[in-house]
Every structure is written in structure tokens, then in C-alpha cells.
């Protein structure tokens, strides 16, 4: 169904629901961070939800996902329960990484989420490797590798792009270009600010899409995944987006203006999708209320699950530093 996509109310509401789930989950995380239930770094996906939601639409259970420290959206959209994710941020044993990873390191074997990686660019070589394994053990499976535009500065980015292209590996590179790497604007970090151009340097198909629109992202992702599954090798998607909040929790944001933030907020993927669905009568106010109620309940349940969670026994500290066997 290359490129074509039937945007009916079912799909529309689904995309909105998924983005809203991330938005509300993270809003709650901020509260809980202030309440010191969540500690360490907390990188919000606020404003970028359309990317994870759109791309995951194109993925199947057999596919793998590699994310960054900004990984809540990917974990939720990939289908990991909010409970285990929230428990992870609480540092509880019931967390999706046993409470050892926290916000930056969400792992889930069942859905092949190979972790939020907190080394910028560090996930790309990994994704090349899982794709290499899949090309032999799970023909047709794709590894979706998410990273920010800042990663394009790292040598690991280029080594990974080149090898994936050379070996025609099934990797979907998804660059979440939110124009800033912490406080570094793209113009001072890359000689060529169109990140998708870099794909050309490796003869890899690539395109730049509006990362604020889940439909555009889904269409592009489906086209990319189709090409990859057809054996044409890796594909590069640059999704132009913006983060509405600080890089992590503390950040004076002196590197950008309120006006710029305001302009981008007018393109808020959640608000726009919601308004459009209502205006086009693809969603009634009641339906929206029901969606919101369900999500709020889901978030509350996740918090309750995390609260009820237990602490890993400190005597287990060294467990898994050396594995006794390879989990099957």
C-alpha cells in the first residue's frame, strides 16, 4: 500500500489516542519528578509524539526497535504497558528493566525494544547488528533505529550508515530532527543541516518529512519499511520536529526564543490532530472525552502499579553482570 493510506476515523482516532497516551503519561511524569518519585534525568518527548506513533504503525511484532534516552514515546507506542514503564522510572523491580535503567533505559524483550541508549549515536551500531542477525534469522524483519539530529555529528553515525548501506541491511534510520542538541542549534553543529542528505553520501534512499504530522510520518514509514522488507537495504527518514520543553528537567533554554517555541506549538501534533478530527466529524466530543478518560485511567493505573511495586533486593546487585545463559 506504498504511500496510499486510508485516513478514516478509526485510524485518525487511533493516532490521536496513541499520541495522547504519550502526552498524558509524560505530563504525569513531570508531576512525579517534582514529587521526587522519579529521579535522575528525564527527557520528555513532548511535541515529537507523531514520530514514534507514525513509525510504529509501520512495524510488526517481528521487528526490533532501538531508541535513545528520550524513549518514553517509543516504549509506549511500541506497546509496552504504561505500568512497567512507570515502575521503571520509580526504580521498582516490576519496571521493564527491573528498575535498573530508569527513564533513559527502557528495555523490553517481548516487543524487541533493545533499549533506550544514553550514548548519543551509540544505538546505531547496535541496530546494524540486529539487522544483520535478522537478515539471516528473521528474513523480512526490520530494525527501526531512532536518534536525534545531534547523533549525525558522531563518527558512529557514519560508520553505521556506511555498513548498513554496504551490506544492504534492513535498518530504518529515523532521525528525530528537533533542531537542537541540548543547547546546540543545528546550524552550528552540521555543515549541511539537511540530515537526510547524509544518506546520499552512502547511496541510501532518504527523505525529509514533517515530523509534526503522524499521518505523514506513517505514510513515509510504510513506504520505507516496504522498501526495506523488499530487500532494498536501509532507508533513512529525517523527521522535522521540535521539543516543546527543556532538554531534560533543568534547562534555562536561553538558546532559543519563546517566539520560536510558540510558532512550533501552533503545529502541536496532538492539538492539530484533535481539532482536525472534530472539525471533520471523524470524532465526536463524546468520543474524545471517552478517549481522554480511558487514557487518564490508564495513567492512574500505571502510577498505582508503580507505587505498589517492590524494590529489588540489594543482594541482587551483581545479578546479571555476568549472565548464566542466553535468554531465549
Amino acid at each position, binding site marked *: 500500500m506504498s504511500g496510499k493510506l486510508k485516513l478514516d476515523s478509526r485510524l485518525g482516532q487511533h493516532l490521536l489516542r496513541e499520541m495522547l497516551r504519550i502526552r498524558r503519561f509524560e505530563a504525569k511524569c513531570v508531576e512525579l519528578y517534582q514529587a521526587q518519585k522519579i*529521579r*535522575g*534525568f528525564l527527557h520528555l518527548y513532548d511535541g515529537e509524539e507523531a514520530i514514534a506513533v507514525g513509525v510504529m504503525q509501520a512495524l510488526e511484532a517481528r521487528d526490533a526497535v532501538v531508541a535513545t534516552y528520550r524513549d518514553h514515546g517509543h516504549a509506549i507506542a511500541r506497546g509496552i504497558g504504561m505500568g512497567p514503564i512507570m515502575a521503571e522510572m520509580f*526504580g*521498582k523491580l516490576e519496571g521493564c*528493566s527491573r*528498575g*535498573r*535503567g*530508569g527513564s*533513559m*533505559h527502557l528495555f523490553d524483550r517481548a516487543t524487541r525494544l533493545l533499549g533506550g*541508549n*544514553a*550514548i*548519543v*549515536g*551509540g544505538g546505531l551500531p547496535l541496530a546494524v547488528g540486529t539487522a544483520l542477525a535478522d537478515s539471516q534469522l528473521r528474513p523480512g524483519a526490520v530494525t527501526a533505529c531512532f536518534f536525534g539530529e*545531534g*547523533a549525525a*555529528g*558522531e*563518527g*558512529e553515525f557514519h560508520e553505521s550508515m556506511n555498513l548498513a548501506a554496504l551490506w544492504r541491511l534492513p535498518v530504518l534510520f529515523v532521525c528525530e530532527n528537533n533542531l537542537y*542538541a*541540548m*543547547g*546546540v*542549534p543545528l546550524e*552550528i*553543529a*552540521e555543515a549541511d543541516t539537511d540530515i537526510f542528505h547524509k544518506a546520499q553520501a552512502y547511496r541510501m534512499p532518504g527523505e525529509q518529512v514533517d515530523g509534526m504530522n503522524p499521518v505523514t510520518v506513517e505514510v513515509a514509514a510504510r513506504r520505507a519499511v516496504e522498501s526495506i522488507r523488499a530487500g532494498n537495504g536501509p532507508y533513512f527518514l529525517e523527521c522535522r520536529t521540535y521539543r516543546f520543553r527543556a532538554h531534560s528537567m533543568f*534547562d*534555562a533554554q*536561553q*538558546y532559543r526564543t519563546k517566539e520560536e517555541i510558540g510558532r512550533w506549538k501552533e503545529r502541536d501534533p496532538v492539538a492539530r490532530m484533535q481539532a482536525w478530527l472534530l472539525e471533520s466529524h471523524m470524532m465526536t466530543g463524546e468520543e474524545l472525552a471517552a478517549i481522554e478518560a480511558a487514557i487518564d485511567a490508564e495513567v492512574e493505573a500505571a502510577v498505582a502499579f508503580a507505587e505498589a511495586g517492590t*524494590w*529489588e533486593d*540489594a543482594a541482587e*546487585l*551483581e545479578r546479571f*553482570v555476568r549472565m548464566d545463559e542466553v535468554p531465549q
Partner: protein
Amino acid sequence: MNDPAPLRMTYREACKQAIRDALIRDPRCFVMGEDVGRYGGCYAVTKGLLDEFGPERIRDTPLAESVIAGAGIGAAIGGLRPIVEIMTCNFSLLALDQIMNNAATIPHMSGGQFAVPLVIRMATGGGRQLAAQHSHSLEGWYAHIPGLTVLAPGTVEDARYMLAAALEDPNPVLIFEHIVLYNAEGELDPAVAAVDIRSARVRRPGRDVSILTYGNSLPKSLAAAEQLAGEGIDAEVVDLRVLRPLDNATIFASVARTRRCIIVDEGWKSGSISAEISARLAEDLFFELDAPIRRICTREVPIPYAAHMEEAALPSTAQIVAAARELVRPQ
């Protein structure tokens, strides 16, 4: 001048003042690294310096640790005095080729034709629940590399004055600033305007046992010493300060006096700087020792996120106290 009141400031502020001084004093000096400018430094150390000194001297770089370090090396060889910031030592692994194969090697390999007067600052350590990829303590590990000077400021005074000494050093210097110490406050003696980067310092004299440590384990060790004093155990606390080259003289003198030694170090135990110190004592002070040497290091695991697990992984005051009791009052 008739001695003015001591100055109180945070370790973070001290680091910043040190950089400001250097930039004012030496036009060859500049700062280069990720987010050192607009963002003000990932730990806010360089906040305000971009406005004061401009983009030529406070250089925001792309995310590219290898070329950041390598360009620093080349710039140093070319006659500048770069202060390179690698955000945290966790990311410095991406720059290790440049640090070991170029910075530490070129002076010797070129037969002394080229020096690399480069300073690289990095944040180090755990204790902020930043999990496995943001909590390494690699300073002791770096101290393995010939050609480098490795510094670990554990006091506001060292944070304030070590940089100037490092910039005087014709060799590449790595400065490891502990993330937990940035908010620590301390007093600066107005009579002191410089520190050396050759010697360890006795921060608390004592007779019964020597506690050798550095960085964020220094406050833990001093707290332990206080507690031990209440129990009638008089512990001496030695701040190593300089991890390469190690100041054998001060270390040996202290241990020869107390005849008992505990080494506290936030690195992973196996192959830690504590191991090196212990080995030197076992080589050269063997007959002066009355008791086995104790090492208190970080547990050999990637640091977990959960607070109680991280706490269980890092060295603690309680561990130091217990070890001292055991050495001084063996059952």
C-alpha cells in the same frame, strides 16, 4: 593586606572562576566542547562565559568527542592552550584513541619535538541516579596511561586552582570533576592563590590508620574519620589529588606512620587506582605494615538507576568506618 575574610563558594563556581582566570590571563587559552557556550555547560560550569568571552574563545562543538579531543591536541601542538570539555568521562571513551594514541604518545614518539599542553576537563562519578551509561568513575583507569597527568579535585580549593597549574603543565592533563561535588560549598583561604599538581595532601592528620582517597570519596572519608574519632580511633585522611603521577612520598610517609591503610576509590575495584597504591605498598612498605590493606571501591557492576541499588554500589562512610575498626581493633 591584613587578611580578608575567607571566601565561600561552590565547587561549580570554583571551576568556573578557574576558567575565567585562565581566559583573562592567557590569550592562547580557549574553551571547546559540547554545550559549553549557549547552554552554559551540561553541569552549568561555563554559564555566562560565552557572553563574556565570545564564540571564538568559548566554542560550542558538534557532538563528536573524538575530533573535539583530537582538535584540542592539534591546537595545543599548534601553540594554543585549549581547555577541552568532554561532558562526562562516560563519553570520553569515544575520544580514547586520540587521548592514548596521540596526546599521550606524540611527545615521546617524536623524540621530544612536540609537546601537547592540553587540558581536558570531564565530569565523573555516580550518585545522581543517572544509571549505567552516565555514572562511570574512570579517572583511576586513565591513570594507567603514561604521558598523562590525571587530576581529581576533591575540594573547592583544588577546583579553583588546579586548572591554572594544569595549564602550566607541558603535558596533557585530564581533570575529573565529580558531579556530586559541583554543589558542595567550601571556603577559600584568601592567603592561597595557587596549588601544586604534584603532591597528595593530608586533609586530616591521625595516628591509627591512613585513609587514602580522592574526589567525592574524600568527604565520605572525612565523615568516617569524625565518626571514628568519637570511638577513639584517630584516622588520617590523605587526599590523593593527583592520580598520575602518584605522590609516593606522601602516601608512604602516612602509611609508614600509621602502619595501617584503607584506600577508598569510586572506581570499580579490580584494576582500580586503589589496587595500584596497594601494590606499591606491598612492594615498598611491606615490612612497615601491621595489617592487611583494605580497599573500598565501587562494586563491580554497571551502576543501576534505583537509588538503593546505586547506594549499595558506591563506597559509603559506613564501609570506611567498619574497615577502620576492623584494622585497628582486630578481634
